[in-house]
């Protein structure tokens, strides 16, 4: 198991180098001169040239890329923002808790609403319950999350005044942004749960469980759901990973100082270190979540667990 984890983490290295190169190249070709943007329109040509020199923007592609890679992977420094000169690593660390909270709460909402909906639909296939919940889910995946966010904030914050419209603070501030993200997630988890459940619900072992007189609740949750869980977990993991990279739009609408808003403002002001640093963070966070998902598989499914053990035994014996 540990061997496997180490191997996976080592495999992340080339991917992360690739991402660094990719985003560096994209930013290199992005039109717009950071020096000119920083100094504004009244700056003289000499000032701009001096600033470009100071930021190292005049060097060639290879020089800049090598310098950046050395800075990140040798000195472990993501660099400072061009705009406010604050360290990108520190800034990401400060913003991370907000993004993490939003991601975690919205995934929990999506799972708590989506899975029961999907199970109910599958168990009552082709009844009005199934049709109704699947219609709901279909509408759910078809709504833009930011539009839901706007409507929610119009209803609950601006009209009724029950919840704060923007900013951060207590749990009340997280309800609307997380709901607006959760709606899509809930709908897609419900659909995945239904189709996963339908695939296993006619299997022989489910029939056997019923035949031996097992309580229906245990048949559904212990026998059927457990075998349908793998793709659902993948979906939950992907959703969590994507949300960890910052809900750019929800964070913008509800003014949450998370990683999403950081990245968008970085892209808009051509703040290369900010964009490169946060994309790097996203790639690492995403890969780690995916690794976690694979480990959860082993926890849920004894067959997968056995595979890991067999492998390590074989290797240990050789």
């Amino acid at each position, binding site marked *: 198991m540990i061997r496997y984890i180490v191997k996976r983490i080592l495999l992340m290295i080339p991917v*992360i180098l690739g*991402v660094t190169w990719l985003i560096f190249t994209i930013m290199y070709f992005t039109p717009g001169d950071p020096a000119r943007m920083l100094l504004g329109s009244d700056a003289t040509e000499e000032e701009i040239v001096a600033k470009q020199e100071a930021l190292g923007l005049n060097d060639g592609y290879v020089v800049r890329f090598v310098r950046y890679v050395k800075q990140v992977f040798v000195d472990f420094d993501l660099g400072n923002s061009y705009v406010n000169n604050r360290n990108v690593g520190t800034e990401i660390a400060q913003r991370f808790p907000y993004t993490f909270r939003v991601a975690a709460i919205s995934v929990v909402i999506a799972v708590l609403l989506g899975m029961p909906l999907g199970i109910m639909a599958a168990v009552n296939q082709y009844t009005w319950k199934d049709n109704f919940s699947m219609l709901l889910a279909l509408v759910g995946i078809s709504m*833009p999350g930011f539009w839901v966010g*706007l409507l929610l904030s*119009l209803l609950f914050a601006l009209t009724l005044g029950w919840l704060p419209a923007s900013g951060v603070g207590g749990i009340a501030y997280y309800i609307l942004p997380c709901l607006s993200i959760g709606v899509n997630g809930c709908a897609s988890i419900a659909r995945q749960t239904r189709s996963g459940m*339908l695939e296993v619900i006619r299997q022989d072992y489910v029939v056997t469980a019923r035949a031996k007189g097992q309580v229906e609740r245990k048949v559904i949750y212990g026998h059927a759901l457990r075998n349908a869980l793998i793709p659902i977990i993948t979906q939950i993991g992907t959703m969590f*990973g994507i949300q960890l*990279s910052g809900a*750019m739009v929800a964070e913008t*609408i509800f003014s949450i100082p998370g990683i999403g808003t950081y990245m968008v403002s970085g892209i808009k002001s051509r703040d290369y270190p900010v964009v490169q640093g946060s994309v790097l963070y996203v790639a690492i966070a995403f890969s780690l979540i995916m690794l976690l998902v694979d480990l959860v598989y082993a926890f849920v499914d004894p067959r997968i667990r056995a595979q890991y053990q067999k492998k390590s035994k074989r290797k240990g014996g050789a």
Partner: protein
Amino acid sequence: MRGDLKSKGFKKESMLSTTFHRLRKNRMAVLGLIFIVAMGIIAISAPLIAPYGYEEQDLYNIFSKPSANHWFGTDSLGRDIFSRIIYGGRYSLQIGFGAVALACSIGVMMGSLAGFYGGKLDLILMRVLDVMQSIPGLLMSIAVSATLGSGIGNCIIALSVSTIPGYARMMRATMLNIRDMEYVEAARSVNAKDSRIIFRHMLPNALAPTIVQATMGIAQAILVAAMLSFIGLGVQPPTPEWGAMLSEGRNYIRDYPHLVLFPGLAIVLAVLSLNMLGDGLRDALDPRLKN
């Protein structure tokens, strides 16, 4: 496939017509198809249908609520929202279909080459996809869109870059499945060229999952395009793209919610019909799942 075996000896039905027969029985899918075709026709013939021009300002009538004159009301410059939504369909649908067409053709090409030839080519292509996929798609689209600047063409490219890996992987998996089928061997035994085997024999048999994915992909592309315009990338106001309209209306949401409500409903309707069609296509192409 099963259907073909059963009708052995009779006139053989093509996969397309069997699929279409099954699709016709699915009321939701037919409804989706009708809706999306209708939206397409309305968007194309916008100048004939829209009561006002999309840039026609009526400064005496700004922010008017929905009425008989202005079905969906007017915006901050007195422009008719109903007309703008009709014209906006041109942009949103064009972006959705364009992005999928581009991503699909590149992805299918990469996937079939990787799946057919395997070996080193496969390895390299798959590693490239790994790197592309370790950046979440949305972020990738945002970065590319920032690089290229605004505009419909650039928006289409930004959206397709992030979805190419999905199509490529799916195509590769399907190609691997059918690579060793008898009919491929038969084609090879009569010394058919590789390109002929891929395009004439394998692709038609491997396209089914891609068609489903593409239909859903158009829906997804429309959603993401709206989001890009909303955060200030992609297509920009005053172009009446639906997301751009939302982003303009957002500032007035407290007093004039109709500025936000109707463009959003247009997006939901388009995406919903495409998803309904996609669901129906999936069931029609793969009746196993229906039980």
